[in-house]
């Protein structure tokens, strides 16, 4: 196998990312174009940046592999990952922006007035961040194995190191343009090969994907298999992805860049369009994979489908170029998502953990942040090396389930219900976090899940842990209704009144 295109792509993307991170994007302007300087980030640009940060290894590699093996059922992953932004758009985006909060912990503190809720939220941010980073590093290992022939640990370590250098050297600043660029890079890296591969398939006279391989209707129809358990898993996945998006720490901080609530909504709308466009592509690879890469499905190495398909279908220089392109896209996906997550998790860790350790030897925000970033990256990186191999998209799905069971109730009740109290929030977060956390641990430790209902329930927990968290939050808040924060009415006015309305918000 020819490893040259993979090596070139990985080296190029790594160098480009490090260069941008080291030198930053510097905008020197003289007074003549002053007005440009005070212009805020436009919704379209911000939306591209959110797309760039959001489309991870799971979207880029995982979905195609799942579709190849399990068929139409798995389309719920891309559908849910897109539709999550619809829920965000309708219920959360604008009020969250108007609250003035930067992180989810900030929102929790502003709404409940309790630092305990804040601390608990910070713990959840770290947990979700680590769980989300784990499959990114695993996916990197798989990618480098497939394209460069390296052992799987090399990829995890390389991506971990690049992200660490990038984030701690100051690559955290002004990354909107970089992330926006990443979205278009990822889109191109899938769109161009997909168009060529489809053309090859059409000219080939090869069979229709539904007829290729076995299974036919079972593959092409949703819920073709699985019975009751399959139905449960599907609904649970829908709940996790629809409601989990709003609780992703690296996505939420991007909304702060919008100047006001209206811009936040516009941004979300554009994100919906961008993601909808992107997610059309992975299923195409999945379908073509049934025709040309049946042995991948048999061997279980489904996450490398997108990386190997161009080589399998086209030989020669064109195949090499396309392989290089998808490899570059995949690597960009790891780096951008991991950087965003590492910054979010590192920020929380530096605020709540390492700053306290460092401040004894003189206050230094930068040192604290670097320590936080190291922790944020090393822990999931090590976990990726020792954890068993799970499909990338499934682990990311679990991270969504945890987010849907914790931050979704907090955000929805916090924004739309005056009665939420600090004890209610704590109880709900604890129930949702412990429930979904236990399920995640169970699934990660024993991935060869049986078909028993216990394994099914724990394999995709959102359908029970999310309602449980909602109910607990509601019930405990009702029981402690004398502890409703005094400022809640004022806060609600602030959340729900457009900025253009003249109003005393003090």
């Amino acid at each position, binding site marked *: 196998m020819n490893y040259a295109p993979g090596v070139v792509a990985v080296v190029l993307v790594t160098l480009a990312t490090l260069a941008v991170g080291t030198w930053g994007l510097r905008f020197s*302007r003289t007074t003549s174009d002053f007005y440009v300087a005070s212009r805020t980030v436009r919704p379209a640009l911000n939306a591209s940046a959110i797309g760039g940060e959001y489309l991870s290894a799971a979207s880029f590699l995982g979905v195609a592999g799942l579709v190849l093996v399990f068929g139409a059922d798995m389309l719920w992953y891309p559908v849910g990952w897109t539709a999550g932004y619809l829920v965000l758009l309708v219920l959360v985006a604008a009020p969250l922006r108007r609250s003035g909060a930067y992180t989810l912990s900030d929102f929790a503190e502003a709404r409940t007035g309790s630092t305990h809720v804040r601390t608990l939220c910070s713990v959840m941010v770290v947990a979700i961040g680590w769980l989300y980073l784990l499959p990114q590093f695993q996916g990197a290992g798989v990618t480098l194995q497939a394209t460069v022939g390296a052992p799987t640990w090399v990829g995890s370590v390389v991506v971990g190191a690049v992200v660490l250098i990038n984030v701690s050297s100051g690559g955290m600043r002004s990354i909107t343009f970089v992330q926006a660029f990443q979205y278009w890079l990822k889109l191109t890296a899938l769109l161009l090969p997909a168009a060529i591969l489809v053309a090859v398939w059409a000219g080939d006279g090869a069979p229709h994907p539904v007829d290729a391989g076995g299974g036919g209707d079972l593959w092409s129809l949703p819920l073709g298999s699985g019975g009751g358990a399959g139905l449960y898993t599907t609904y649970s996945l829908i709940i996790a992805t629809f409601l989990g998006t709003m609780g992703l720490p690296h996505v939420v901080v991007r909304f702060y860049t919008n100047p006001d609530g209206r811009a936040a909504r516009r941004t979300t709308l554009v994100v919906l369009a961008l993601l909808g466009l992107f997610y059309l592509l992975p299923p195409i690879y999945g379908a073509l994979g049934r025709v040309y890469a049946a042995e991948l499905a048999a061997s279980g190495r489904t996450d490398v489908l997108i990386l190997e398909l161009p080589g399998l279908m086209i030989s020669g220089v064109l195949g090499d170029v396309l392989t290089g392109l998808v490899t570059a896209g995949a690597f960009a996906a790891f780096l951008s998502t991991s950087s965003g997550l590492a910054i979010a998790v590192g920020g929380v860790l530096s605020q709540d953990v390492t700053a306290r350790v460092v401040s004894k030897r003189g206050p230094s925000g930068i040192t604290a942040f670097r320590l936080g970033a190291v922790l944020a990256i090393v822990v999931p990186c090590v976990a990726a090396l020792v954890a068993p191999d799970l499909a990338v998209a499934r682990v990311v799905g679990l991270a969504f389930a945890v987010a849907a069971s914790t931050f979704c109730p907090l955000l929805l009740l916090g924004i739309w219900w005056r009665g939420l109290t600090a004890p209610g929030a704590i109880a709900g977060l604890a129930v949702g976090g412990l429930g979904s956390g236990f399920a995640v641990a169970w699934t990660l430790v024993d991935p060869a899940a049986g078909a028993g209902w216990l394994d099914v329930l724990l394999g995709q927990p959102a359908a029970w842990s999310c309602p449980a968290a909602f109910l607990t939050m509601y019930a405990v808040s009702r029981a402690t209704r004398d502890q409703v924060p005094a400022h809640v009415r004022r806060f609600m006015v602030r959340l729900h009144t457009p900025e253009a309305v003249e109003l005393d918000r003090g």
Partner: protein
Amino acid sequence: MRVGWPRVRRSRLGGEADRATFRTLHTASLASPALREGLTAHSAERSIRHLRTLLGTPAVAITDTDRALAWDGSGEHHIGQTAILARAAVRHGSTRVADRKDLPCDEPGCPVRHAIVSPLVVEDRIVGTLQVFADRQSAGLIRAADEVAGWVSGQLELAELGASRTRLAEAELRALRAQISPHFVYNSLGAIASFVRTDPDRARELLLEFADFTRYSFRRHGEYTTLAEELRSIERYLLLEQARFGERLQVTLRIAPEVLPVAVPFLCIQPLVENAVQHGLQAGDGTGHISIVARDLDQECVIEVEDNGAGDDPEKVRRALAGDADVQSFGLANVDARLRTSFGDDYGLAVETAPGAGTKVIVRVPKFAPGVQVTGAGA
């Protein structure tokens, strides 16, 4: 061993009298945070329970000069009578004792039979009363009521002090708002006038900039604004200064667009820029280089205002920031104080300077701080 035990214990916790003192001090410390907010129904409500523990009587009430604020203990049907007692105490200005005929009561076994009414005095002015109710009175109880009332008065006086400190900060902000220098107004208008014949379009533009600049600076409402608004005003200021100084004033701006929505105290960057322009123009070669940089550091943003001027003695700057009135740097100290009030002591100004090396002022602002929000409508 048996003999040693109690001795060890006594030396650790003190005798009965010591422990009673500790208990009293602890109870007092529980009441004081509420009282430090001043005398309101809310603060009275929160502190009165501890005051009754302190006095150990069946009931206690707190009033302002003419109505009840809070009641704790049994016999709450007497709350209506507290206002009359309060007015009497305010009239006489001293502690008064009321007995059963002042406190008519139909309830059998009601423990409220006598009342001791002590005035609460803040800066020689009676602001309310502490009323202690018991089934019998004693000289000891009167003394205790008096002492507690004196202690409460002390706490209220501290509250008054805190309030006046806040008022002072507000007054300083108002002063700062009105502090567009007369020289600046005069010089700007002069510069604009010089363009009226040669370049009427530019003169008109500058005049509009001048109008917008003054409108922003004189804005009356809102303690916070966005960094974008603040920079927009700085832009106008620099345009006007450049109209006057032309090539002698060089400005470089590097603003990360991510930090533009950050909430900052109103007029907290502009005074720094004005200082930088003044310093820069006094530079050796007569050309002022000003650079304004805003960077995104995840949870916070950093704003740096730098000039190539003559620099300053670091010790002098330190004294200015410490509030030394002899050093003429009202703007710097005021910005520093307001940043600390808004975001905590970690977020004061940092100034890097040395004689002959220019000055760089660094402002750090967290993206979110509880209680900090942009309240004014956009200008």
